[in-house]
């Protein structure tokens, strides 16, 4: 997957988790927590959805990499390089 694909995957997961939130103005550099008020339960969900959909497992010590869209895409670009779209 390319960084663009990964960004779309994350957007899809976010819109499933939070269908009432408008994601069109999401700022990639700003933490999700500040823009969407995601809490630890929601971060667990992002991790679980990635595991469910793409069999990517993210250990607990790496959860911090998922703080914002840009950090998430940077982190997952390495982990998901061999994952098909």
């Amino acid at each position, binding site marked *: 997957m390319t960084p663009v694909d990964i960004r779309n995957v994350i957007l899809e997961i976010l819109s*499933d*988790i*939070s*269908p*009432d*939130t408008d994601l069109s103005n999401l700022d990639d550099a700003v933490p999700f927590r500040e823009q*969407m*008020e995601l*809490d630890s*339960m*929601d971060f*667990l*969900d992002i991790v*679980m959805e990635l*595991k*469910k959909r793409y069999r990517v497992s993210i250990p607990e010590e790496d959860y911090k990499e998922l703080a914002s869209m840009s950090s998430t895409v940077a982190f997952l670009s390495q982990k998901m390089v061999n994952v098909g779209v």
Partner: protein
Amino acid sequence: MYDTIIIGAGMSGLAAGIRLAHFDQKVCILERHYTIGGLNSFYRLNGRDYDVGLHAVTNFTEKGATRGPLAKILRQLRFKWEEFALAPQRGSRIAFPGVNLRFNNNIDLLRSEIRAAFPSEIDAFERLLTQIGDYDDLDQDLFVESTRQRLAQIFREPLLVEMLLCPLMWYGNAREHDMDWGQFSIMFRSIFLEGFARPFKGVRLILKNLVKRYRSLGGELLLRHGVKRIVTDGDRAVGVELDDGKMLVGKRILSSAGCVETIRLCDNLTEPDPRQAGQMSFIESISVLNCQPEQVGNSETIVFYNDHSEFDWRRPEQELCDVRTGVICSPNNYQYADDNQLSEGFIRITSIADFDRWNSLNSDDYARAKWLWYDRSIESSVRFVNEFRHRVIGSDLFTPKTIQRFTFHDNGAIYGAPDKKLDGTTHLKNVFLCGTDQGYVGIIGAIMSGISMANMHCLRI
């Protein structure tokens, strides 16, 4: 082999089931009763639909809210706000002799009522709001602190303390007389800072949505399948034996049966658990009117009344019931969309009751007692709302015995045991609690309990 076996198809078990099935677990929910819902169920009698439990869904927030328990459970279960179809309350009241405090889903009404009735206490009330805002849900030591001691330090008017405690104890306090500070803070937010709402179709709408979703994810639900015992091997459970003798094996068990009730199911315990099940149970009289309640001057959603200046939140010591305090609720009195309205009027009155006394009556005395206490609870309530008895065309009454018979909770205890098990763990490494004894009460609380215990103990593996 199931990944998780869930005991009980109430709000918490169904919510946990959805989470686990969504993440591809093989899940089975076992329910002894012939229908779903547990402490928040519904029934049909003489062609009418009745709700059990639900007066109001608490924690109401408007569509689009990102904070608060309602928003959180919608996200976790992937529901849209519209699917719960919540209509906000009209307005409610705490009624004590000579003093009334009205409140609705905006804290400013309660604030102005307190300013008018207790002008010297308004600053203290603001301090209370700050303390409630600062309360950290995850702090177990803070959770069990005495609310009465806290409030005595904040307020000088004992009557105001009793009036604030009344609705919060009524809607979620398993402990007699005092209340855990954590429970108080959670209830305060859910009732005064968020608020009451109800789906037009009542609790069945929420339950049906939960079941539909659970089944669509491949979850199994077995009604009329009670668990006789939890089969153990050393410090772990290996599965359950059903009432009919059938065995199911599972990697872990999540039980909403209650703390004492779950431990009693385990086949490796000979010592009885010293913790006591809860004692607070209720009767509820339901009157069907041939008009809307507002036509006889009762347009409020919920009235919490108490006929003397102290609020005695205790099991009755002398009689079957204590009707000096009660809750009067009209499911008609919500702001339903498109001016929808229930075709008949309903007034439900809840009073404190003693399980042991109700349970010891023979069937004739039991039937007589039901009608006696139906009359007494209404007689008591019409001191605080307008007379409606001339409009009654149908009625029913359920007792602690009814609640015990259908929910299998000891003593028919509505809010479970006084000592909550916030982390949901038991003496067995793979058996966990959810529901009323884990800590959260009410519909939203029960759903949250199922979600958080599923996340904490069944998904992070």
